[in-house]
């Protein structure tokens, strides 16, 4: 029983991270119907920035004068600053890419922005290659690996807590934002019908830019958490990350914000449980087999809206 709970805990923590990335896919898709393949690589660049900042500021548990000196409160503050800086960086970059690459193709056939997104993904990946070098890089530990539940039983460390402490409020803030604010309302309007939204006076371009910014910001936050939780980053991490997050978005119903969260958690759980009970090497196969099964019986995803024109 304890083993099962441990695996669920790992699955949920990993899943929360996947969900945070998946939100970036699903929001952009909901607004302009574009699958932003560059999103995973955007997160990789965010992680590069986080690593550079941590190295430049000399943080890290190992060296005295770093996090060890400022104490736990300082650690959390430092992480908060990292999340904010990387979030702003990724959000800004995402908006810039939209301006330069996707906006001129707004009325082009759907394949044109899609292929451009793949191109942007390659550009990001090579930028990451220059930034990090070809080898994987170790991300310094900023949080101690002490078990919060004590003893040798269930393992729940500061790192796991960090994922939840950052991810859950961000998701809550996002859903409040979309539901309650004027800009959120405008977003929902644009995602339902762009033309009608423009007719009632909504500045569609501004709404799209805001969507890209929020998606990018969440990605930037995810990149910091990823670095601190997984502790290894590399220029190729964007692809795998993006693949799982995209799968989560599709699983939950692409375009649906709660769907992305549910999809992410489901994927995290499936990965953990299939590693525990079937075998580590089958995890990828099982995740995608479940995706196929769900899409056969519920093409709109777990929480997606049923639309007629979907193929």
């Amino acid at each position: 029983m304890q083993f099962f709970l441990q695996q669920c805990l790992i699955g949920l923590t990993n899943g929360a991270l996947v969900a945070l990335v998946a939100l970036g896919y699903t929001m952009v898709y909901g607004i302009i119907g574009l699958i932003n393949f560059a999103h995973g690589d955007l997160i990789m660049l965010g992680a590069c920035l986080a690593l550079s900042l941590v190295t430049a500021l000399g943080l890290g548990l190992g060296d005295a004068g770093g996090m060890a000196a400022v104490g736990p409160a300082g650690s959390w503050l430092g992480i908060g600053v990292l999340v904010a800086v990387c979030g702003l960086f990724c959000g800004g970059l995402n908006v810039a890419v939209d301006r330069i690459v996707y906006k001129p193709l707004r009325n082009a056939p759907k394949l044109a922005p899609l292929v451009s997104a793949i191109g942007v993904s390659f550009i990001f990946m090579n930028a990451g290659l220059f930034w990090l070098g070809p080898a994987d890089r170790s991300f310094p530990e900023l949080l101690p690996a002490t078990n919060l539940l004590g003893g040798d039983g269930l393992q729940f460390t500061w790192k796991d807590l960090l994922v939840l402490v950052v991810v859950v409020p961000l998701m809550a803030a996002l859903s409040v934002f979309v539901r309650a604010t004027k800009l959120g309302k405008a977003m929902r309007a644009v995602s339902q019908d762009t033309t009608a939204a423009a007719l009632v006076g909504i500045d569609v371009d501004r709404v799209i830019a805001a969507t890209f910014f929020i998606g990018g910001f969440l990605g930037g936050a995810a990149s910091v958490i990823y670095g601190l939780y997984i502790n290894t980053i590399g220029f190729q991490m964007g692809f795998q990350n993006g693949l799982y997050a995209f799968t989560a978005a599709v699983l939950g119903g692409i375009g649906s914000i709660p769907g992305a969260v549910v999809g992410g958690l489901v994927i995290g759980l499936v990965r953990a449980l299939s590693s525990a009970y079937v075998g580590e090497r089958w995890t990828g196969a099982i995740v995608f087999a479940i995706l196929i099964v769900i899409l056969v019986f519920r093409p709109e995803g777990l929480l997606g809206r049923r639309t007629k024109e979907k193929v």
Partner: protein
Amino acid sequence: MTARIAAPFLYAALLVLAGCRPADPTLVKIVSSLPRTGSAKQQSDTIVGGIRMAIEEAGGTAGPFRVEYLDLDDSTAAAGQWTSEAEAANARRALQDPDVVAYIGTFNSGAAKVSMPILNLGDLLMISPANTAVGLTKPGLGAPGEPEVYRPTGRLNYTRVVPADDLQGPLSADWAKQRGVKKVYILDDSEVYGKGIADLFDERCREIGIEVLGHDSIDAKAQEFKSLMASVKAAHPDLVYFGGTTQSKGGQLAKDMASAGIQAMLMVPDGCREQVFIDSAGAANLEGRCYVTFGGLPPEKLTGKGAEFVERYRKKHGELPEAYAVYGYEAACVALAAIRDAGVKDRRAIADAALALDDFDGALGRWGFDKNGDTTMQTLTVSVVKGGKFEFEEILDANAVGEASPVR
């Protein structure tokens, strides 16, 4: 009009002629094919350093020939490690240059599988400084059809200066038993080298009565192994064995093992014996509990010619070489000796001269090649990670430990 049509053809003809200039009969080339980008670069830099030193010390000559060296890369930056395409291209390139008489490589056993059959067709001598998969040379120990599939001509052209895994895998298990290990959990990266050595370790454990709690293959593209490590933890092993390399996520496994709170020892083979492994795992996660086996002696334990090499290397480059540098040096020395012994610029003669070496006095000691092209060296060392560095622990000699003899 005719002149305009003829011009490109003329130009092309000139190019072809230029390419076909008569080969210089006094020039021979040695090429190496190693992963020169990605995390193996640090290791391969020192191997190439070793090769260059061997050629320089010979005055750039071997017998009557001038020797040129070409450093080829079998990895791509995009992959971060060796690729079949790059290795095959290197092998063909070496084969097509008539001056090339020796091919030093590969680093990864999987890469050797690609280039061995290509080079065999041209009888080009291949000397690996680092391949340890058993199937490459030893009949009956690898997959069905090995090693004949790598020798389409039926003749031998492949040699290696490093002992194979049929020594390393079983001896590691014997060492673990000596240290009082009763239960192990085995992981591998599903690659030729990693799975090969993990299987040999597994087999030996069962033979000598160490309980194998589980044997899982990982996906080397996965980003974390937290669930896997929770399973490992629940099994309560005394030792976790990982058959794989730094490039196939050795560092990440060690990291996740530590963060799962597993206190067991970690044992890894020579594919992880490089500084980047410690850097990527985080020194604190390995401190005092990670044991690394290596087919041969670590740089600081070499004696005689080997110690002299390490000293010259340190003087020249200002740092100690990685473990495989001396094997690069030895491979180049073997190539030079074979060229000298053959005395003619003929690939078959040079390959035969190398295979005939039976009492070679090199940096690794006195050794020779057996009938499969394997080294007769039978030494294995265990190091432990301490203070962020590999620290020599003990020498395991297959000949000295009678009952531990891996020969089947």
